[in-house]
């Protein structure tokens, strides 16, 4: 398994979608282009295509989620697949069944694709390296590692609003990068798409060690960090960060790193504001900003469906035409 890229089949096509790193610009662009073709469908009155008719997709969520699970479910249904939602936090894990046993049992029901969310980094890789050859795995978030469909819907949103040339863009990601699988995936995606400049902005307690090695510039001051940027991506601040001596209070965090209309003046005049949701209003950003003209937060949610349709259909196509 070592050194082998699980995600790509022998013909360079998407086999599983586990992380952004390990993919190339061509594949990311293909995902965005495919999503573009599906975006039209989701705006029609009949929102279904028969691409995955007869296929069974299982949403295997070991961690609670509403938005991500719902958009994955909608995406699968719009591709005409049969969808099963399994919430393991309330199921077999509490009975002591191992992850592999859970997987084998569901697999025995002849599943074509797993959409997996798990609290441990590397869970999607683990599952992908143990499924039957005819099964694809889509990572819907694993620990602090990766949330690649979120990153791709963000790229999709940026491309729709700002155009396809990422090279002229400055993007700032603000908040808890240390614990964020979303930020890691966004950084990898932005760099693969040759974004002009990627910045991260947070106090040192929320920045991972050797962050520059990810290909970002690190800022500890919000105003400086968002100066002249075209895209501001705000991250959700979990309440439990106050407990681990990472921050003194939500109040001070808001004062220093909360995004307000006033602070946005530093950014480029047509800068957009993004957030993976759910928002803590009054902690990472003001309602004025979240609901304001620069906000594309709800578009991100809509785009999530098209991007997930794209990834699912691509992974399924790889094995249909697959290696035999």
């Amino acid at each position: 398994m070592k050194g082998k890229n699980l995600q790509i089949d022998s013909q360079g096509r998407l086999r599983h979608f586990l992380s952004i790193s390990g993919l190339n610009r061509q594949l990311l662009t293909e995902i965005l282009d495919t999503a573009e073709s599906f975006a039209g469908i989701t705006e029609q009155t009949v929102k279904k295509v028969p691409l995955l008719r007869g296929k069974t997709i299982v949403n295997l969520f070991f961690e609670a989620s509403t938005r991500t699970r719902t958009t994955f479910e909608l995406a699968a249904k719009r591709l005409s697949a049969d969808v099963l939602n399994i919430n393991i936090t309330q199921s077999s894990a509490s009975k002591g069944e191992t992850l592999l046993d859970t997987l084998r049992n569901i697999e025995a029901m002849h599943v074509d694709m797993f959409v997996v969310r798990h609290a441990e980094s590397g869970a999607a890789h683990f599952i992908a390296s143990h499924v039957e050859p005819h099964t694809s795995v889509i990572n819907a978030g694993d620990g602090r590692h990766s949330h690649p469909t979120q990153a791709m819907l963000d790229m999709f949103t940026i491309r729709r609003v700002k155009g396809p040339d990422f090279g002229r863009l400055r993007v700032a990601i603000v908040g808890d990068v240390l614990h964020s699988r979303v930020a890691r995936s966004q950084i990898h995606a932005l760099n693969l798409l040759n974004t002009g400049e990627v910045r991260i902005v947070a106090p040192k307690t929320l920045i991972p060690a050797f962050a520059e090695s990810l290909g970002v510039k690190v800022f500890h001051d919000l105003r400086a960090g968002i100066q002249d940027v075209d895209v501001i991506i705000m991250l959700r601040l979990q309440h439990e960060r106050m407990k681990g001596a990472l921050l003194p209070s939500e109040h001070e965090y808001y004062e220093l790193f909360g995004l307000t209309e006033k602070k946005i003046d530093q950014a480029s005049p047509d800068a957009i504001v993004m957030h993976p949701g759910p928002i803590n209003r009054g902690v990472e950003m003001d309602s004025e900003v979240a609901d304001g003209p620069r906000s594309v937060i709800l578009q991100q949610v809509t785009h999530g469906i098209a991007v997930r349709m794209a990834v699912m259909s691509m992974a399924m196509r790889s094995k249909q035409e697959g290696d035999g």
Partner: protein
Amino acid sequence: MATGSRGKQLRIRIHGGRVIDPANGIDAITDVYLAKGRIAGLGSAPDGFTADEEIDAAGCVVCPGLVDLAAAMREPGQEQKATIATETRAAASGGITTLCCLPDTSPVIDTPAVAELIRLRAAHTGKARVVTLGALTRNLDGEHLSEMAALRKAGCVGVSNAHRPMLNNLVLRRALEYAATFNLTVYLLPNDHALANEGCAHEGQVATRIGLPAIPEAAETAAVAHLLAVIEQVGVRAHFCRLTTGRAARMIARARYDGAPVTADVAIPYLYLSENDLSDFDSQCHVIPPLRTIEDRQQLRAALQSGTIQAICSDHQPHEPDAKMGPFPATEPGISGLDSLLPLSLRLVEEQVLDLPGLIRCLTIAPARILGLPYGSLSVGASADICIFNTDMTWMLDNSNLRSQGHNTPFAGWEMRGRVVHTLLEGRVVYSLRS
């Protein structure tokens, strides 16, 4: 001492081998004579010696049986992973004749009864000598002193709190003082548990990229610093187990220079692997303390050369397959190391880190001296614990030839050079390679 009297202790002549005995500065092609379980002589036969058996060691190295400072037997308590019987057999096939196990068994080695149980099990198998470290605190709770005098009487060669934290520096000081009262060496695994923060990978570029909860270098160095401060205050003899960072090695070097009674070891995986081996979430590389950077690996090798680190151990931690089946952070840490200790160590000679006598020193007399045991040498009168290995034989480590019950090793598929041909414990052949 721990091996009982089964099997006949024949008079044996081992002839034609390259005899390397760093304790006595010997490196020569010569013969070794064994009688009554002891070394009877080197070179020419002792007066009146007639061999019952001859071992042809031509083309092989003949050295003292290896002494491994850290091997978990998993017994008592975790027999699904391994047992004393399976692991002492694996040790014998790896040329290891003395194994030291930490007190973190279940129950903990905090009473003479548990120490005695382990001794008896090993003696019953008779394949390798097993010595124990007693618990520094009762049930390793980090708070209440164990009955160290009783543990010493029961044969424990030192005391340790294994991987468990001490409640505070006052308890640490008292425990070290009490251990020093009985002249017990304290074995310390330097780890600041709060700083480690339940991480599973080195806090570096790899953990940052793939989002693994990380353990900073300071988890080791901060622990070494405060342990050294207390050790120097108390004056206890202390051994630092499993250093993983170059910075910690430099701190130990400085303390030794200043006269502190401290020694240190390194486990063999840390001399070959690094944080980079985690990029694919390979759970076989999940170890605690974590694999550090390439620079740390280089500095640990340099510390071996300079003598700051005196001993190399396997840090053997066998697991059942399920323990390694899961997302990386959820798997159990540890590598099964008895099978690969000698062949991996021999690579250090190939890579010119150490010469062969220097390496054998790190695997025999140096750890024996740390343990305060009269093994690891071929001195006349010493226990006839001998490892005979072929330096040129190459083989591939894989599931079919692993002798340990734990098959959890990232070195499967590595080509190994050097293979044990015979192992003798107290003058008895406990392992011979089938040709």
